[in-house]
């Protein structure tokens, strides 16, 4: 149903660049863990900058909170076409665990 609705967008809007869409590829294997970290940091929008490595523990991040959880769910849905839920996040200990949710 989503693919058929693309035709509804006036071509002028797309041409003018006024319409910014993130269209999921549904193929998360294209995303490296480095790219994922960049997109994750942009999504969670921390007030204080942090440096993230794949093995960074989420519990060591002062701003890894409910807002970050919401932002991560939206990131997976809109960027990777992957539906994850709160309990999936609760099982993740490190950044690499989050990346693995793309599965």
């Amino acid at each position, binding site marked *: 149903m989503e693919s058929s*609705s693309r035709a509804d967008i006036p071509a002028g809007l797309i041409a003018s660049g006024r319409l910014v869409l993130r269209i999921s590829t549904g193929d998360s294997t294209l995303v490296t863990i480095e790219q994922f970290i960049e997109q994750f940091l942009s999504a969670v*929008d921390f007030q204080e900058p942090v440096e993230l490595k794949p093995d960074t523990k989420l519990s060591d991040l002062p701003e890894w909170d409910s807002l970050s959880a919401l932002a991560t*769910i939206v990131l997976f849905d809109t960027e990777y076409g992957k539906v994850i839920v709160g309990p999936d996040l609760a099982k993740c200990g490190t950044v690499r665990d989050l990346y693995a949710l793309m599965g």
Partner: protein
Amino acid sequence: MSQCTLRNVRFAGMATCVPKRVFHNINDAPPQIRSERERLVRNIGIYTRRLCPEWQTFSDLAFEATEKLLADLKWNKSDIDALIIVGQSPDYLIPATAIILQDRLQLPQTTIAYDVNLGCSGYPFGLHLLGSMIASGAIKKGLLLVGDRAGEEKDPLFSDAGTATALEFDPNAPPMYFDLNSDGSGYKAIMLPVGGHREPVHISHLIPHRDEGGYWRSGMDLVLDGPAVLSFSTQRVPPAVDSLLAHVGMSKDEIDYFVFHQANRMINETIRKKLRLPEEKVPSTLHDLGNTSGASLPVTMTVRLSDTLAQGRHRVLLCGFGIGLSWGTAIVDIDSAVFPALIEA
């Protein structure tokens, strides 16, 4: 029943009233949480909210909206057949607030008046309920009052509003289309667990503790599972909208405006992007007026679209979703309806 059509129901007008008192989500927050609040506000998109002072209730706001709407419509109060409230902020636990308002508004005692317990999803359901009474020919004119007094200083989402919508029987009215759904398996996602018969108030519920912002919280507070609400909203709403459009054979181009419940920016932007809708067709009032629960569709129509909707004919898609869990969509053609400017009381 998931989808249905109502005929002979005309959308005659709408009025919205919010409290005068403006609460700023960053400047009015305690200094120790201001930095985290800045980040939160950026992401939920809610900068200011309207909060009732202690003496003011939802019904006070709805009363003002109704008086103004009836005056502008030039309807006689004696012609009103029904007054339905959809909301979760009654004046008292019992009796129903709509009955109290029948008297306060000086409507005839022949008025059908009762309350319906729905929150953020409520507007399309209320339109369907009152519309069904009118479509059946049982009544000619009715009022639908939707909204809540859900705002509290300590929680950054909710904002207060009361709204009134007038519907009337008109054989020439264009059809209204509905898609209405309920999923009680998610009832714990947003709830006030204490105070009903499953868990009556006990003295232990009343003992408050201070949170990190210095706000007092207790077992009497609303419980909201953020990730569950986000997942529900972004997974259920886009297919429901597509499904209703497909059912009635309309393309998105044939809809002038898509008005969604104003939940928060994250949820609303995700829904908009998944449905591939341009920003200019999806009006928002989150920035200034927050999440006004069931009132958010009327609030957004009044604040963003009233000049447009008061002239000529426009087609709007209205979609509410939330506590229940419950979600509903309506497609309504609005032709030269009465839309007073936002009322502040």
